[in-house]
């Protein structure tokens, strides 16, 4: 029984092997010595989407690829590259999908117009109610 349990546990642990054995990239979990640059890197990493854990930012994700992307972001920031340029470089490769920052492209118009539409609907409702409430 115990042997069986151990065998089952080992079989269940197999996915742990389906990952890289190499050490993490140098800057993946290390802060840049310059606090201003680190702040820039952090801000950007929070707005880049992880390709593996697709609901997370690369700052939050534990995936190897996210670690390598954090390394890439910090390295480029340390080399003096602007965050907008790094984001642009990634968008060229993965599309706007990679960035959490909303863009002005047509697909995002409903996002920008929704608050305006909701305000207009609210104003219309209020006007309607107020008029109904008036003594005739």
């Amino acid at each position, binding site marked *: 029984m115990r042997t069986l349990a151990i065998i089952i546990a080992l079989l269940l642990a197999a996915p742990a092997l*389906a990952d890289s054995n190499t050490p993490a990239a140098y800057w993946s979990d290390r802060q840049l010595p310059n606090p201003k640059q680190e702040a820039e890197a952090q801000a950007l990493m929070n707005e880049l989407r992880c390709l593996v854990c697709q609901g997370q930012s690369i700052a939050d994700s534990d995936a190897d*690829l996210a670690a390598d992307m954090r390394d890439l972001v910090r390295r480029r920031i340390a080399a003096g590259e602007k965050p907008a340029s790094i984001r642009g470089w*990634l968008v060229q490769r993965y*599309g706007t999908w990679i960035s959490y920052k909303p863009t002005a492209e047509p697909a995002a118009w409903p996002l920008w117009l929704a608050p305006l539409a909701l305000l207009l609907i609210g104003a219309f409702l209020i006007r309607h109610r107020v008029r109904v409430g008036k003594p005739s």
Partner: protein
Amino acid sequence: MSRAVRFAPLAILVLLLAGLVWRLATPADTNVASKLDGKPVPAFVLPAALPNKPTLNSADLASGQPRIVNIFASWCVPCITEVKVLQELKARGVHIDGIAVRDRPEDIADFLAQRGDPYERIGSDAQSRVQIALGSSGVPESFIVDGKGIIRYQHIGPIAETDMPMILGRLEQAK
């Protein structure tokens, strides 16, 4: 309140549930395609993955003939089944180069010794930099690069036996 209005919340709930059930039954495609399809391979230089095999640099790809650039790793399970198909492609005269992601020379050597070696060159991409530069988001992935070094097709996931005719067709188109 009219009857129709009274039932509106229920109707909305049913619609919402139907939508959720539909999305659960047919999950959205989570693959992220590279935007570099149709564009030149970005310039890169990689160290050799193995001491006895030439490395892969972007300059090697504009070779006048279409090639497959396969992004793989010894720790990647689907890569095991894919290698067999790559061997068959190689037997049909297809040129295949490899990029080993986050891998160690001894592991790559073991992997190739056990599963077969379809690669003409293998570069080692220890920090996924070339993988990211290519717009690839995982292993395995394959790019068909034409003779001028332009990316013509990206295959996400392992190339299966049943994908062979399609891959051979894409290679033919890239000539």
